[in-house]
């Protein structure tokens, strides 16, 4: 490709934990590779729907602060999902952008993604395709195992993001959506629930826990009443899944998130239901959460309702 035909973004500021993500990779837990993929799947799905991309197209995920990008190439549209503040800098001036709305970028324009508001993750993409390599069917970057494009590392300043395809029949679209928050995180009791004293079991569901700063794509550490183990602080190491809440030897809960270690040896007190995962990961450090016990049957129904709600939101894209 001749350089004048290239379409690409240059990263002026990388932001925090900025990576490519898609739906992630399956069937690799047994060798130690987790799902990865976009943390907030609903916002991932909304973004690709808004941009009329394939449902599993790569997007750029960032946490707290997004990248500052300068665009070079022919006209292109971009869109951002999540609760995000950003500015669009053009020759005509600077405007504040809105999430879930598509904007045109011309050669030399910039997008400066300041921050996510009262949430952790935001997503950026274009009406087209980023030039990414696939590892086990996914372009998701897993920085812990250094798997994915960019040698499995998060984005850094001066990196150039190639665009290999632009959808020319695209029409600008938007969605009025304010995001969805949650008060209680619903869980199903875990396989080691009876490792904990009755008073600790009660505390787990009655008192609130604070999300600590030691939270990332691998896990979320919580702080609150100590959960007392009356059997054994360790179990024989076994498989974990997204959303499992382990209790460490110190008595603190830690929730497994999308890049989690695939096996672990702490007892499992509960597992976050699939319907609440997207909203769980958006809770910022310092927030308090409470757990609510639901049955497996209810969790299955709640997931179906959550998916229906997502489809309903997508149908409102204009």
């Amino acid at each position, binding site marked *: 490709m001749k350089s004048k035909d290239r379409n690409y973004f240059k990263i002026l500021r990388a932001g925090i934990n900025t990576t490519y993500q898609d739906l992630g990779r*399956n*069937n*690799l*837990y*047994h*060798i*130690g*590779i987790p*799902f990865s993929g976009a943390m907030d799947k609903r916002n991932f799905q909304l973004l690709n729907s808004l941009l009329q991309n394939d449902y599993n197209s790569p997007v750029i995920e960032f946490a707290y602060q997004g990248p500052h990008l300068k665009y070079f190439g022919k006209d292109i549209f971009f869109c951002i999902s999540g609760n995000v503040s950003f500015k669009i800098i053009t020759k005509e001036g600077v405007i504040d952008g809105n999430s879930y709305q598509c904007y045109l970028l011309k050669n030399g324009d910039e997008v400066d993604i300041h921050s996510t508001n009262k949430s952790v993750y935001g997503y950026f993409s274009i009406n087209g395709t980023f030039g990414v390599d696939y*590892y*086990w069917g996914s372009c998701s970057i897993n920085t*812990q*195992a*250094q*798997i994915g494009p960019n040698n*499995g590392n998060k984005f850094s300043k001066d990196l150039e993001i190639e665009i290999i395809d632009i959808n020319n029949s695209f029409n600008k679209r938007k969605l009025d959506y304010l995001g969805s928050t949650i008060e209680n995180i619903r869980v*199903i009791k*875990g*396989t080691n629930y009876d490792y904990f004293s009755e008073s600790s079991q009660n505390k787990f569901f009655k008192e609130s826990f604070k999300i600590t700063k030691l939270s990332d794509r691998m896990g979320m550490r919580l702080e609150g009443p100590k959960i007392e183990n009356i059997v054994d602080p360790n179990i*024989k*190491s*076994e*498989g*974990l*899944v997204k*959303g*499992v809440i382990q209790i460490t030897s110190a008595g603190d809960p830690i929730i497994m998130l999308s890049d989690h*270690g*695939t*096996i*672990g040896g702490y007892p*499992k007190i509960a*597992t*976050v*239901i*699939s319907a609440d995962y997207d909203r769980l990961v958006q809770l910022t450090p310092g927030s308090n959460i409470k757990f609510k016990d639901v049955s*497996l049957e209810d*969790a*299955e129904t709640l*997931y179906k309702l959550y*998916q229906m709600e997502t489809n309903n939101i997508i149908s409102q894209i204009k």
Partner: protein
Amino acid sequence: MIKNILNLGDAALYCDFGSDVNQEINSNVIKYFYHIKKLNLKGITNLTPSYNKLIISYDLNIHSFLSLKKKIENIEIKENNKLEKNLIEIPVCCDNVFALDIERVENKLKLKSEIILEKFFSKNYFCYMTGFVAGMPFLGDLDQEMRLKRIETPRVKVPKGSVGITEQFCNIYSFETPGGWNILGNTPQNIFDSSNQSNPNLVNPGDTIKFYRITLDQYNEIKR
């Protein structure tokens, strides 16, 4: 047939093969793991074998717990299909720069370092499972007199290639990661190769490992 299947959250089956850790139970787990993997069932998103459990993650849009449980429960493995077992030799250097916990191990086991290493290198080890981080093998079993607990305060960073022991097990740190095992040495060999997408792991469940000792010069030679 898998008798004891519970749920782990709302999107995974928790197949319980027992509470003991031994090669017989683990071989049974691995047999079911390979068998179910080969069936390539639609909507199964992950299979995680461990010492005595097999966790089966599934897509909630395709399966519910009860329907999938029934399907998995009824799987019979008829023929005594033998596990494919490879013998893999792995070089380890136990020079002081790598043997981070040798003094602690000497004190806890009340054995001289040369005896500890002699015992360590005299056995073949069985791979029970791989995971936690990509490619990390969990191997066993160490002799009774070689068994000790993890270090009290886990290291924030265990160097890549470290070979550690705890309880009846040993492992190899395929990546730099936090960890609490007692480190006896380091291997220059790559344990996980993401460019080999069909078989990125050097060691797979069911394999046998033979460690052999190398000098620091040999280590540097292999690294180069």
